[in-house]
């Protein structure tokens, strides 16, 4: 018997094909997708790793005269201030803002996707507001709201309390920075979590409720464990994204003497003389990569048995919403409070500033309101060129990343092949690459490869498309909820791989892909470091125009442009959401 068993040929390749349903075209698509993903990430990643080890600072990393050296790492990691101030400040900042943003974001996502909260669709779009506004503009709006002397909220509170002087709120503190960063990060967490919450089969929760468990017990012992991949992925991503944030720390943190790690990157890139210190900036960015790898390793250990998290099987289910009952009003108050602080007040500041500048509010001031800033914008041909370029670049890159990331996620989850774990880590590391390094890499690559996209908007599409970490994580988390039997049944019925993907997997993965597309579209509209580096006369985008207007000292025009950027993105988000709802996602 044993001899007979040993005599049987190895059947692994056939078993893989049967398991995955991959036919020839399927293999071509998968290999092409993986190749595209590797290509998009490889140049920025290689540039980051190489640049950190190239010096001295008088030479650019790729120039003759630059050498391999550890001096960047030594300069950054032997500075005592790193351990005395920067790391402790960074830990407090990141942990504080992630804890707050995740708690608020999860609660909002659960209320919008799993309960009968009234006005869900409107809340969905309003909750995303902080994500739509360029962070620097949002930071200024919050200073305008919560500045200790003249912030609108403080003026109102002092009037109510009958006090004078400063405060009671001071945005220029660690607490102020944490709250502002959390407000800015909530939409990111929210949109990532909505995908998982939307797809979850409620039967497990219903069974728990039927068995007598309270909603809180059901939430704690059923919902959270089943959603673990869908929760962990956003948690890891928001940790890394917060760690990289430098805009709010530079506007609000530095006046509060809060020094975070990411600010060192800005510091290295703006020396008093000479060239930007790309080597120093890359050296500062390396821990983001290391932390990303470590967090991903933890994630993989926690979710290693993917079938535990399956909730979508061949059996149909109806998505039911939990009735809030007497919790409806508190839920509305909670959502309303976030929307007021995160959306309505900053929006009011922006509109006010676009009409009047940052003058304090008063009826007298209102009489001088003018649309001149908008007229100047509309009269500028660069605005229309930038608008066109922004829609094309953000839309195309979001589509590419979502599709390639989705395909990569499927490949990593459904297939077994040598190097699978390495590919998983490789795709995730893209989140640890600062935009400035990615921009430098793309610039050098397409100066060297003469395919004619340098200086065009095509180079921006390619440059933006290295951010595969988010879409891959989302796709994997979404796929974990889908039982393999759905694809196997399709293959067994004779459907080709492509047909199975298009008719079964993609529709079920709709929510994840939607979240990925919307998030990446918004990020693409806001992104300004990459287009600034790759800036040419013909590929200007709205974020670069905003930066130019800021530098010109034209606050009303900057606020007007920020308002128009929001006006551009909101319909895209609303339409995409409507399409998702109609498709029954």
């Amino acid at each position: 018997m044993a001899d007979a068993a040993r005599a049987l040929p190895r059947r692994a390749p056939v078993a893989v094909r049967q398991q995955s349903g991959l036919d020839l075209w399927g293999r071509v698509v998968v290999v092409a997708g993986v190749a595209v993903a590797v290509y998009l990430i490889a140049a920025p990643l290689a540039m980051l790793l190489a640049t950190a080890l190239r010096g001295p600072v008088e030479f650019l990393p790729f120039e003759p005269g630059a050498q391999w050296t550890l001096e960047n790492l030594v300069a950054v990691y032997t500075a005592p201030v790193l351990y005395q101030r920067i790391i402790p400040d960074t830990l407090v900042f990141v942990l504080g803002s992630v804890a707050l943003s995740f708690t608020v974001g999860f609660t909002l996502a659960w209320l919008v996707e799993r309960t009968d909260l009234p006005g869900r669709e409107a809340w969905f779009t309003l909750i995303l507001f902080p994500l739509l506004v360029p962070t620097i503009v949002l930071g200024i709006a919050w200073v305008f709201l919560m500045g200790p002397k003249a912030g609108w909220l403080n003026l109102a509170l002092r009037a109510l309390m009958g006090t004078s002087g400063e405060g009671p709120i001071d945005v220029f503190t660690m607490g102020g920075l944490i709250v502002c960063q959390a407000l800015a990060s909530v939409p990111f967490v929210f949109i990532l979590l909505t995908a998982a919450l939307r797809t979850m089969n409620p039967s497990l929760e219903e069974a728990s409720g039927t068995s007598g468990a309270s909603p809180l017990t059901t939430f704690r012992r059923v919902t959270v464990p089943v959603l673990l991949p869908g929760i962990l992925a956003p948690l890891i991503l928001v940790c890394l994204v917060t760690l990289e944030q430098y805009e709010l720390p530079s506007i609000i943190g530095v006046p509060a003497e809060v020094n975070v790690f990411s600010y060192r990157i800005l510091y290295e890139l703006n020396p008093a003389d000479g060239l930007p210190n790309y080597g120093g900036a890359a050296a500062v960015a390396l821990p983001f990569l290391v932390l990303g790898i470590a967090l991903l390793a933890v994630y993989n250990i926690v979710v290693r048995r993917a079938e535990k998290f399956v909730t979508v099987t061949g059996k149909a289910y109806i998505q039911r919403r939990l009735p809030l009952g007497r919790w409806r009003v508190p839920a509305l108050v909670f959502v309303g409070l976030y929307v007021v602080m995160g959306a309505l007040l900053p929006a009011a500041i922006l509109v006010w500033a676009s009409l009047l500048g940052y003058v304090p509010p008063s009826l007298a001031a209102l009489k001088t309101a003018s649309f001149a800033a908008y007229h100047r914008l509309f009269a500028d041909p660069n605005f229309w060129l930038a608008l066109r370029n922004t829609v094309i670049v953000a839309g195309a890159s979001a589509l590419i990343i979502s599709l390639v990331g989705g395909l990569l996620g499927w490949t990593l989850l459904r297939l077994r092949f040598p190097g699978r774990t390495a590919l998983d880590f490789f795709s995730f590391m893209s989140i640890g690459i600062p935009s400035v390094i990615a921009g430098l890499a793309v610039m050098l690559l397409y100066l060297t490869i003469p395919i004619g996209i340098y200086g065009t908007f095509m180079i921006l599409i390619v440059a933006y498309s290295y951010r595969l970490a988010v879409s891959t994580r989302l796709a994997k988390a979404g796929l974990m909820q889908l039982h393999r039997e759905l694809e196997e049944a399709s293959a067994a019925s004779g459907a080709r791989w492509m047909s199975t993907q298009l008719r079964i997997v993609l529709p079920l993965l709709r929510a994840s892909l939607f979240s990925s597309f919307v998030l990446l579209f918004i990020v693409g509209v806001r992104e300004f470091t990459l287009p600034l580096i790759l800036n040419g006369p013909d590929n200007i985008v709205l974020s670069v125009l905003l930066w130019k207007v800021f530098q010109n000292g034209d606050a009303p025009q900057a606020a007007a442009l920020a308002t128009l950027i929001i006006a551009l993105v909101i319909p895209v988000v609303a339409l995409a959401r409507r399409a998702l709802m109609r498709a029954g996602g």
Partner: protein
Amino acid sequence: MTKLIRPALLGLAVALAATPALAADWKDSSDVKDLYEKAKKEGEVVIWAPNGREVDWIPKAFAAEWPGITVKGLGDNDIAPKIIAEARAGRHEVDVYWCSITCVQPIVQRELPTKIDWSMFGVTKDNTAFDGMMGFTNNIVYVVAYDTKKMSEADMPKTWDQLLDPKYKDKMTGSLFLMPRMISALSMKWGKDKALDFARKLKDTGILLTRAPRESILQSGERVIAAGEVDVLPKLWAKSGMPVKYVIPSPVVLGQFGGTVLAKAPHPNAARLLAGWMASKDGKKARERDNLEVDFRPGSDNPEAKAIYASGVPVIEDTVEDMKARAALYKPAADILTGQAK
């Protein structure tokens, strides 16, 4: 008397003839006319600068004096690495690079610009640098701007160290980008210890140092003084209707800016014409009129500059020789101002 006057007039004529071509004359020289004809055939010229505001005014102003040549501009903080990277790849898009002497230096070190004959534009040798590769166009001057509805000129400091007066506590804002640079420049007059001590004590005044636009901080009333700004910014704010003015404390701190022509400029004649015009008195007048940027060097026609030199206050110029020394304290000052060092 006639015998005395005639030789005097003759001497004057000789002196004038020996002087490099004056503002009104240089455009009439045959060399310049010839250059203009060649530049018109090229049809366009590309100029890059650290930010868009510094090039946006040029197309219209240049076209008014030199019609038939289109000026295209690009503004970006990281222009120098871009020029270097493109040059290494054999791609040459830019004709003229305009920046401060510190940010032009990496380009000069790589021998990317070319020397030009500035004298044909009436530019004297002391208004050039890097052995004739750069022609000076204007300066920035560090100033203290204030909200005129809440402060008066009499309230403003006459010297930089007067900013440490308790009456300014919690009233000031400043730029995280500019302030360390200014303090580093002040060290050229004060010495390193006094400059760093100034940085520490300035921090203790509660100054709100930020990368946010300071005009929004002033407009909102959160602060009433913007210290260590460059002169052109409060001028722009005032032009937009803000109630703001500025004073120039002693010692006066200047930054030097100018233009270079790239050796492999795709439009070499138009490039020379543009760079030469910008460094000429005509170009400087146009820059002052259209972009509010002023030449503050000795010999400038600007009334504010003349008043400063006439008053005898010390002036810290920005020179190629002093660049390294002037930048040496930037990092220590920045560390103190951001709370990373004491």
